[in-house]
């Protein structure tokens, strides 16, 4: 049976040599390698649920009056878009399940992709020959954030919402899918990295072959991701827009908070001291530019530039297939942790108003606490991380071979 099927494929597509190789493709094993897979599988759930939702969503800002099953909104004026989302939630059977699963998938996707990025950074997986699979992934993060932002929906001129919608359901997902495929192709072409160990060298990769060991494992992970997302979508409410009511541009009645993944931009906008760059009566650079545009651009530029920065500093142009333990690379780990802590403080600052409500520290004090934190925390994190790394690494080496301990 299998012989006949393979021969069928081989005669028509010449696929047997490829298949033979793919079946025993080796996957090095480490839990942190699964973060990328989790991102990939939640992207699949995101796309499938998203396609279903497009069949019901209407990207129109035309006024309409609600006459549906949800009593509190009965007879209210709202946009077609808002009405269609309320209908997806209450009228379409299984609509709410799919909609909430979609939202949860987006959240899990963002978290998984950021953790994956951190893993790649701290283990040095971005070095040659994989520097370009990393460069590929930075726009993936950017495009994903863009989709999420556009997904939030914009008030504005009527044709605007329609175009934002096309970007959300068509242009950006295709861009992400293309970049993701290129990223995976490059990973396969240069094979996966591995942590050093017995038999694991720069020349030979050791791990579990695709068949029979790896396929049921990764299938199990994919199904587990789907299970968690669907359970969240069914049981844990997210984005209940019917409770917030339709948005009226003129009244500016917004109880809507931006989603959490924009916290780092909101935080930057809020922490920025209030000044515009002006020449006489002419505003050259409006204030939101610093926090809303320059800050994220700098963060992305850092990620883009890092492989080059490190190559310049270490003058290391070699090919690397073995990963570093973060503690062995104290400088890189310290810089990474310090930059990450900077972004994390800004992110936290994005919830200053929530902190003020729940903890009671006045907002005006927090502004100054967080601003001071931005100056103090990153250097502190740098010094402490560097110290911890060198001690860990020293201890490890002295256990392996006392004479090899660094002087």
């Amino acid at each position: 049976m299998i012989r006949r099927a393979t021969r069928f494929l081989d005669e028509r597509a010449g696929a047997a040599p490829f298949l033979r190789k793919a079946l025993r493709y080796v996957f090095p094993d480490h839990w942190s390698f699964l973060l990328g897979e989790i991102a990939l599988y939640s992207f699949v759930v995101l796309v499938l649920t998203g396609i279903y939702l497009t069949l019901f969503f209407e990207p129109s800002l035309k006024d309409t009056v609600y006459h549906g099953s949800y009593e509190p909104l009965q007879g209210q004026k709202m946009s077609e878009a808002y009405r269609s989302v309320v209908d997806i939630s209450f009228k379409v059977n299984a609509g709410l399940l799919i909609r909430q699963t979609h939202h949860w998938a987006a959240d899990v996707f963002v978290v998984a992709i950021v953790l994956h990025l951190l893993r790649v950074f701290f283990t040095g997986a971005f070095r040659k020959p994989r520097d370009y699979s990393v460069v590929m992934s930075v726009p993936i993060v950017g495009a994903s954030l863009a989709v999420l932002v556009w997904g939030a929906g914009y008030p504005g001129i009527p044709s605007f919402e329609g175009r934002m919608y096309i970007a959300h359901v068509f242009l950006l997902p295709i861009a992400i899918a293309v970049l993701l495929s290129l990223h995976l192709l490059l990973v396969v072409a240069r094979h996966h990295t591995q942590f050093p160990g017995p038999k694991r060298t720069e020349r030979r990769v050791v791990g579990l072959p695709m068949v029979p060991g790896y396929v049921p494992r990764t299938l199990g992970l994919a199904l587990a991701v789907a299970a968690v997302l669907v359970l969240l979508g069914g049981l844990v409410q997210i984005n209940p827009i019917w409770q917030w009511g339709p948005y009226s541009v003129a009244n500016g009645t917004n109880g809507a908070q931006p989603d959490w993944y924009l916290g780092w931009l909101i935080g930057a906008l809020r922490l920025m001291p209030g000044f515009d760059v002006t020449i006489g009566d002419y505003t050259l650079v409006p204030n939101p530019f610093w926090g809303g545009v320059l800050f994220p651009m700098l963060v992305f530029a850092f990620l883009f530039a890092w492989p080059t920065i490190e190559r310049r500093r270490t003058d290391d142009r070699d090919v690397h297939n073995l990963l570093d333990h973060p503690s062995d690379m104290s400088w890189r780990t310290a810089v990474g942790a310090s930059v990450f802590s900077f972004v994390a403080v800004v992110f936290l600052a994005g919830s200053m108003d929530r902190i003020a409500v729940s903890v009671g520290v006045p907002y005006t004090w927090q502004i100054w606490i967080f601003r001071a934190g931005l100056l103090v925390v990153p250097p502190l994190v740098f010094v402490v991380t560097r110290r911890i790394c060198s001690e860990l690494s020293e201890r490890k080496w002295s256990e392996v071979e006392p004479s090899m301990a660094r002087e």
Partner: protein
Amino acid sequence: MRRLGRWAIAGAVLLVGRGQRRRQLPPPEPVVDAWEPAPRAELLVAGLLLLAAALAVAFIVIYAGGADTQLLGLALGLCFGTLAVASIVTAFRLTPPEEAEEPYPERFHSTEVAEVEQIASESGRPLTRRRLLGLTAGSAGLALGVALLAPVASLGPVFDTNQLRREPWRRGVRLVDSEGRVLRADDIELDTLHTAFPEGANPEILASPIVVVRVEPARLDLPVGRRNWAPGGIVAYSKVCTHAGCAVALYRAPHFEPSRPRPALVCPCHYSTFDPATGGTVLFGPAGRPLPQLPLAVGPKGELIALGGFSGAVGPSWSGVRE
């Protein structure tokens, strides 16, 4: 006779060949590591697969019978969950924990790299005017690229700046609330924020919405030239924050002791805070300039009317927009 002989030879060859072929097949070298059978694990997997099938059927039944979101999520989620467990049991009990080895791909293919370079240079050998061809091809490509992008302009204008600059407030325009009712000076109480619009104008124009509050007249300290803009301490400002254009929707006017900061208009987006008593000046936050003030007066029947346009440009400080 000869024919018969051939048939005989063919038959003999076939017979002999059949026997030989059977004998020739040696067992192939094993590729996959040997691993102990685990019949109980197989039973467990089979049970889980059956359970998953049952949960999938349950999903269909729930869907057909009213589609309760929680039950749907439970059925489908648990179905995926059981399948996940079945996969993982298969992985750990029914497949060998192999440690396969494979060489990493070559760093680069030196022969092919050299050959690509050779092919490129040999193909270009007959060209004598390379710079000319390169420049002309570049300009053709650039021009075509711009031409193909040009139709995108039909999407515009993206930002209709005239729309932003339209001024619905003029001398004598009455203030109305969101339902269109005329606002009277008596309606405006201390420590209460009112949103108002110009009567008869489109409320969605950027400059339309204003906030109206009453400040204790003793506290008023408006800039020079705005002395008569606040009848009875009632002041009006644009509702659009000068920082990022959000709605200034909060009014900080606490009634409790002992900490009693001055009443302030607050934008909930980035917490720019403006002082209504001093002409909308920035008390705190990232805004770079004050809220534009609208001069008010009280009409003959006690209704609030505008005395003219705003004191400055409405909306966030885009390039060029300033007081």
